[in-house]
């Protein structure tokens, strides 16, 4: 699919810059230019597609959708699925949480949305496609959704409502179910397109610096760390590798754009892909800043249960990835 691009980059590096084919500098530069352009093309296309879907299913519509009908468990899937297409900023998590439970959406379903939203989004899908190919991408997206559903379901079953902070409980007592103030704008596809394009551009612009830094660090590690370096420490046989990778990732805070290029090099240098994905999921899905924000709505005990259940699900999927990929 990207043969034409590789040819153009080869031409640029070896003919225009006349660097020697096979030299370390030429190869590193070739790798950097090709990877960067490929990822930005994919990023543009995927953010546009997700932007179009999101334009027809904005967050208000999703909420009304989930509150109006009884879905008999299907709501966990819908919440996780819509979480992936909704662009997410961690500082939106609290307003979103309140807005959802206030509208009568069960706690578990709300949490399923909150888990899947940072885990799978346009940026991570585009970068997975660019770095690991479509097979790993599909496995990642499907498992991201399934993991959110399962974690949400378990958290729902644990009946944690009494562990919410007092002001949230008060809001829940006065919840208005019939709060359907949202009126959908009637716009044709062509009317929507400029706005969608602009937002996609904003998203790409916002993460581009992280991607460039990530690819640059990845390129350096690529050149200086010998292949198989990590294998000595973290092999597939080490049963503790996945939990350790997850626990190390939890306090860290980064988006998919920053962590994926580094993860790609770790995998090339011998870290099993499931272990690397578990690390990446822990970095983007759980973090200290997010925990501090969520403390506004959850008591410390509930926060620990929330992080614990999600971390356990990440660890289990890490083992599963290592088995099937």
């Amino acid at each position, binding site marked *: 699919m990207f043969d034409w691009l590789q040819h153009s980059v080869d031409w640029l590096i070896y003919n225009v810059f006349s660097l020697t084919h096979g030299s370390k500098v030429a190869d590193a530069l070739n790798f950097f230019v090709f990877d960067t352009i490929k990822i930005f093309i994919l990023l543009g296309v995927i953010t546009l597609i997700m932007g179009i879907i999101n334009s027809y299913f904005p*967050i*208000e519509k999703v*909420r009304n959708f989930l509150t109006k009908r009884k879905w008999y468990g299907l709501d966990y899937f819908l919440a996780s699925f819509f979480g992936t297409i909704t*662009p997410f*900023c*961690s*500082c*939106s998590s*609290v*307003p*979103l949480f*309140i*807005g*959802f439970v206030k509208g009568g959406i069960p706690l578990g379903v709300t949490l399923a949305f909150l888990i899947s939203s940072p885990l799978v989004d346009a940026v991570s899908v585009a970068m997975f496609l660019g770095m690991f190919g479509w097979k790993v991408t599909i496995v990642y997206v499907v498992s991201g959704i399934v993991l959110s559903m399962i974690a949400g379901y378990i958290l729902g079953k644990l009946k944690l409502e009494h562990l919410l902070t007092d*002001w949230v409980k008060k*809001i829940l007592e006065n919840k208005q179910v019939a*709060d359907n*103030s949202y009126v959908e704008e009637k716009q044709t596809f062509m009317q929507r397109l400029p706005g969608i394009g602009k*937002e996609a551009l*904003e998203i790409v612009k916002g993460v581009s610096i992280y991607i460039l830094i990530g690819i640059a660090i990845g390129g350096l590690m690529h050149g200086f760390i010998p292949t198989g370096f990590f294998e000595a420490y973290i092999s597939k046989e080490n049963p503790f590798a996945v939990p350790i990778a997850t626990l190390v990732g939890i306090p860290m805070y980064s988006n998919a754009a920053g962590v994926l290029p580094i993860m790609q090099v770790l995998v090339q240098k011998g870290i099993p892909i499931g272990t690397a994905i578990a690390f990446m999921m822990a970095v983007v899905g759980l973090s200290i800043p997010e925990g501090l*924000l969520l403390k*506004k709505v959850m008591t410390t005990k509930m926060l620990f249960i929330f992080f614990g259940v999600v971390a356990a699900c990440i660890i289990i999927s890490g083992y599963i990835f290592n088995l099937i990929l």
Partner: protein
Amino acid sequence: MKKHIKVLGPGCTKCTATYNNVLEAIKQTGIDADVTKIEDIEEMMKYNVLATPVLMIDEVIKVKGRVADISEIRQLLTA
């Protein structure tokens, strides 16, 4: 007439960007307006928002869930 502008958001980079764009747009248009930053989440929830940052002009939500750029805010202010 003086316009009342509110920027809702818990203080992440996107919210700060929106706030600074608002200040710049007011400067450029020379419109008489005051800007309030609402960072307290309990206060924010009174406006029933789902995604931040939110830009409100005279108690009406104009932009939500994304950063509004300067030219867009100028249009909203002069409309």
